């Protein structure tokens, strides 16, 4: 899959630093991650489940000889499990988990565009009580009249690695 780069329509001074974000669709919502943390986008392959891991850790895959865990963000956010369709892919990211770099894949419904967003355009997420864990959101942005939820990938990484659970 190729990602197209769009220039941002919202007027901004050219000198402001813009970050590029890869956006994707997850359960009807648009999320974005810093493109620098995205290593590759991979078609779905069979995942080997791992015992005693939380539900949102689907298992591991073989990424050119390395064993990489796959996380279902829908489950992570407490939504219904992902239905693997024609556009479902793994977005493989590299981020810091427990003090070092790790590689992890996330199941997304579809990959969308790459946007340039400057820090000024990022608004903090409103505090809506405890309905949903808001630590994973670094902020919100508006692109083409749509709300984009910017994901804190380090948080996703860190929280997916736990102390081993007990066997039942």
């Amino acid at each position, binding site marked *: 899959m190729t990602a197209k780069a769009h220039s941002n329509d919202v007027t901004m001074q050219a000198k402001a630093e813009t970050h590029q974000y890869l956006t994707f669709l997850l359960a009807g919502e648009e999320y974005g991650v810093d493109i620098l943390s995205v290593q590759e986008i991979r078609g779905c392959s069979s995942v080997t489940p791992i*015992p005693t891991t939380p539900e949102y850790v689907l298992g591991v895959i073989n990424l050119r000889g390395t*064993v990489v865990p796959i996380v279902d963000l829908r489950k992570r956010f407490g939504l219904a499990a992902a239905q693997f369709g024609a556009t479902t892919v793994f977005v493989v990211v590299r981020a810091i988990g427990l003090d070092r770099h790790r590689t992890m894949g996330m199941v997304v419904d579809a990959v969308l565009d790459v946007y340039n967003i400057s820090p000024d355009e990022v608004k903090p997420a409103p505090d809506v009580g405890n309905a949903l864990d808001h630590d994973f959101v670094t902020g919100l942005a508006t692109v083409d009249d749509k709300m984009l939820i910017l994901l804190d990938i380090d948080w996703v990484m860190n929280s997916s690695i736990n102390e081993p659970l007990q066997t039942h």
Partner: protein
Amino acid sequence: MDLSEFLAVFFEECYEGLGVMESGLLQLDAGCTDAEAINTIFRAAHSIKGGSATFGLNEIPQFTHVLEALLDQMRDGRRAVTRDAIDLLLESVDCLREMVDGTKAGTELNAERIAAAQRRLENMLSTADSALEPITHPTIKEESPGDKSNLSCWQIFFRPHAHMLQSGNDPYRLFRELATLGHLQVEADLSSLPSCSEIEPETCYLAWNLWLEGELAREQILEIFQWVEGDCDLEVKKVEEHAGEPEAEVGSEVQGEGQAQTPIETSSSPIPNARGHKNERASAGQDTGSIRVSIEKIDVLINLVGELVITQSMLNRFGEDFEQPQVNELRDGLIQLTRNTRELQEAAMHIRMLPIGASFNRFPRLVRDLGNKLGKKVELSVSGENTELDKTVLEKIGDPLVHLVRNALDHGIEAPEVRKAAGKPETGLLQLCAYHQGGNIVIEVRDDGAGLNREKILRKAQEQGLLSANDTVGEEQVQNLIFQPGFSTAEKLSDISGRGVGMDVVRKNINDLGGHVQIRSEEGKGSTLTIRLPLTLAILEGQLVRVGTETYVVPLTSIVESLQVEPTRVSPIAQRIELYKLRDEYISIIRLAQAFHGHSHALDRGQLVVVEADNRRVGLSVDEMLGQQQVVIKSLETNFQQIKGVSGATILGDGRVALILDIPGLIQGCIDRSLTQIAA
């Protein structure tokens, strides 16, 4: 100028030198007269001194200089080799090692300790030694001309002018000539050395301070420098002899041959050449045709071999299903490929293997010191030092071994009086041996001491609530109790043992390496601890099994047998734990499907794989036994985390990931669960 690369090499060589010094000193007996042995120690000290001076590390050369002086006296026969001297020198080596550690880590050196040690060395130096013996030299003695008391000491200051090198004069050659006249010590003066970017290789920036001792006249020195007269600043001064040093003995003036090659190398070479010289010396010292390779290069190679194994098994899979006429050729080709791959893999593995002697060589010192401390007489016998094992395993087995040896000395071997009363020789025997067996390396720590005291152990176990008074316990189980955390029958703590944190950590460390440890002991006669470790860490022989839709790998070395389940032999306890009657024993059953996926299935439709770890057996219930193959171990922790019951992952021929089961972990988990379930 960035010296850090050279510094790294220098530190490595320092440690090597310290090792040479230590083992040399340990082998030196009191009253020894073997000049060559002492010389080896001296040379090592000298190199360390010279090298550190080159790098401007001032404390080390200062300290080493005194050490050197003492060694020098010994090798010249001006001082006898006494046990006290050896002990002091050994301590100084420790001190020196600490200094190197500190310098390397950039931490502050313990100035007090260094000063104290230095003072002791200087004290020893200044006391004249009365009991001298003439020493034997391996080389032929040169006839000394005339008068033996004509020893003179000269200090030479030599600074070549900048262009001296361009006339083809090499200071190294000059110094070599000087060395043939007598005993030469060289120190380079680096004060005029500019930064690396400004250095011109044909310009000389260095000056040297030389001390030459021997029967020679000023004219002889000046003669050597004749060629460079006018191109250098030269000062030759006669130095007063040290007061209090006893007159030279017969053997001491024969210095020409033995010395010529030694002192010059490290201290006199200008920095750009330092590395070349060091390597020269290192290879001259140990001419075993070996080479230093960085560990990363080896790991790259091993990874590539791992990938090759995967590719080859993938091709094998295709080969099996082919129906075409050329299949025979394909099959032959694949057999050939398998053979090549296996050989390549073994060769790659062997690169990482080092002889275990490297780990064993710290023990003579340890045993000696500990024996002294505890007041026990122990003789250490080591065999199988050439048995090779993987470098990582070697590094990690060091600490557990130290602990076992300490235990043997502290608890095992008795005090000399006790031994005598028991009719044993006063000196206890501690044996360390290593050998290959099957695909493993076996290390034994054997002592002829008191053995495990069954009574004491049982009592302690009851005290700690591990056993009740009525339990019947088999011999093996008693002995295995010492591996429990916090278990110790020592009456009092010492800094050596007694805290009870040792044996379980030892066993855990060994298990982590994929091995096991067992103890066999006979009360009054002694104990033997046997450690078994796999030879390689990255590749293992595995049995593939199917549980539900997933494939798992069971390490072949842990499989005892596999059988078809006979439902009549299955008996539950308290409705929760299932046991299987395997001939005369009952073993627990772990239903993998349930443990891993949460489904249960009928036992009798699958197989039972009996696995063993630490003398405990368990039956794993699987759906189907698949093939056996070599698998490359991939780490789960690199990108994920450690999972209980799983020791790693591998990639099968079809590209899918299969999990490798951690047998000791599974068995332990089963036991833990049983205990909690029974208690509940």
